[in-house]
């Protein structure tokens, strides 16, 4: 199959280049003295120092982190419970449950953002940080649930049976057998929820109120109005580096457990 390999290999290489090219440009431009990035005008670090002095961006980033740190545990908990329910039981209730969990994955974000906007108006909840938090938990549950469900399907339940045979109660089984072995899956789900929350723009944009500018929303407005656009390049270079670190950590944490 060598010709097939060469063709698909070339396509893969081109696709990877396609994925990474804009990032290379962005990182390069974060050191480019030119304001518009069209031409190289000299090496500089001042976009990074400008970033450090930019109160709005740093505050937006802090807010984004805070919301993500609050939404992640809630979404992970609800998603894990959902995955267990969907895996263990196969009643009509679960069919309805599955539909509810899978639908957010296939609906465009603008629909969820708009529906939540109307919901928060109609119920008088109002727009703001708690609205954003609730919205983030809602769209994260589905992803967490599907990830953990996939892990459950590959899970070796004979271990559970063995523990039961040895006299463990249901609670002990859950806490000392299931959870530790599913731990990498739960962590993967949590990291997924965290990333989705940090990166979300559309839904947050629809339900945000005063003083709730998150980083993506801030970037959106800076893209349009800021005359120090390369500060965004500097920010993205730093975030990319931070993400690589996060990914490396998660890869290390979710490495396959050593089987006895």
């Amino acid at each position, binding site marked *: 199959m060598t010709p*097939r*390999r060469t*063709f*698909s*290999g070339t*396509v*893969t290489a081109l*696709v990877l280049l*396609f994925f990474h*090219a*804009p990032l290379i440009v962005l990182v390069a*431009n974060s050191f480019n003295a030119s304001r518009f990035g*069209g031409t190289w005008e000299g090496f500089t670090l001042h976009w990074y120092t400008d970033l450090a002095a930019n109160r709005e961006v740093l505050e937006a980033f802090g807010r984004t982190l805070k919301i993500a740190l609050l939404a992640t545990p809630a979404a992970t908990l609800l*998603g894990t*419970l*959902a995955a267990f*329910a969907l895996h*263990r*039981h196969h009643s009509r209730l*679960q069919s309805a*449950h599955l539909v*509810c*969990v899978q*639908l957010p*994955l*296939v*609906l*465009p*974000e*603008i*629909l969820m953002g*708009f*529906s*939540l906007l*109307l*919901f928060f*108006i109609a119920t008088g909840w109002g727009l703001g940080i708690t609205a954003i938090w*609730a*919205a983030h*938990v*809602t769209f994260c*549950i589905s992803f967490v*649930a*599907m*990830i953990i*469900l996939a892990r459950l*399907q*590959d899970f070796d339940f004979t271990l559970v049976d063995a523990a039961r045979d040895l006299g463990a109660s249901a609670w002990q089984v859950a806490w000392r057998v299931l959870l530790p072995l599913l731990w990498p899956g739960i962590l993967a789900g949590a990291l997924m929820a965290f*990333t*989705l929350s940090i*990166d979300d*723009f559309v839904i947050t944009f*629809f339900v945000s109120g005063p003083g709730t500018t998150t980083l*993506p929303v801030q*970037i959106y407005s800076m*893209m349009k109005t800021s005359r120090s656009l390369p500060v965004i390049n500097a920010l*993205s270079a730093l*975030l990319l580096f931070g*993400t690589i670190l996060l*990914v490396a950590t998660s890869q290390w944490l979710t490495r396959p457990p050593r089987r006895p």
Partner: protein
Amino acid sequence: MEKSRNPRSAPAIRTTEWWLTLPSFGWLLVFFVIPALIILVISFRTPDVTGGIGSGWTWGNWSAWLHADVRVLTLRTLWVSAETTAVCLALAIPVAWFMARCSVAWRGTLLLLVILPFWTNFLIRVFAWKVLLNQDGLAARLARALHIIGDGDTLLYHPGAVLLVLVYTHLPFAILPLYAAAEKFDFSLLDAARDLGASAPRAFFSVFVPGIGAGVGAAALMVFVATLGNYLIPEIVGGHESDMLGNRIAQRALSDRNLPEAAALASGLALAAVVLAAALWKWQRRQVRTHATNGPAEANPARHLQSENS
């Protein structure tokens, strides 16, 4: 697959089921199902010129779907989504093939390389394309040198730019389920096909592609539906000819003071997405029952990473 060990614990199982299900199901009912129903209800209300929702009931908002300009938007949205899906599949299938045929060590690295850029902020990536495709940037100068575009033309602000960035955004969501399916594919089937005299391309299209059918379906659905509702990318890199339904919904909701019409458009879009998803799931369930090669895991393709879905 819980077997009841003790007949007396049957009611206990039901309570456990309720306890496990209620938190997430309850949350989704409140924050997902009810808002969706609210949109549906509001789509039948009269709009109030001073902003928001009036007090009467009307079919008028749904008739917005019949207006000439909305028909144009709908056709354009369907077309762009179809194009994006086609291009994504055309690129993702070879990539999935390649990755599945690689050694296990390489697979992990490739997967990481595919996913890594998408762990950075979505808007920044779109902004990066703006810089890359800028009038005076490298890409534009190259394109002019190669006579792909004329001297006065730009690479940005037209449907080509929108297609490019849409494909860029959604390609990983196509690659991942296809890779998941390809990994489980039994490649010895291809050798069997070759032994029976099929040529390499024939084997590829008649054996491999149908073999990862569930993955193709999942990838196509995800990309198609995500693109349907997209409004950010046309807004940022698109020009006049690029507005899609999502742009109209956002405009009606966020600045035209016409929430009911936005609701009618949004509901229609949601219904289309739900119908497509339901059709795919039905088809997948049939595939699972008739094809023993793919395991039950195919019924729930694990979508490993899915960030911006707009």
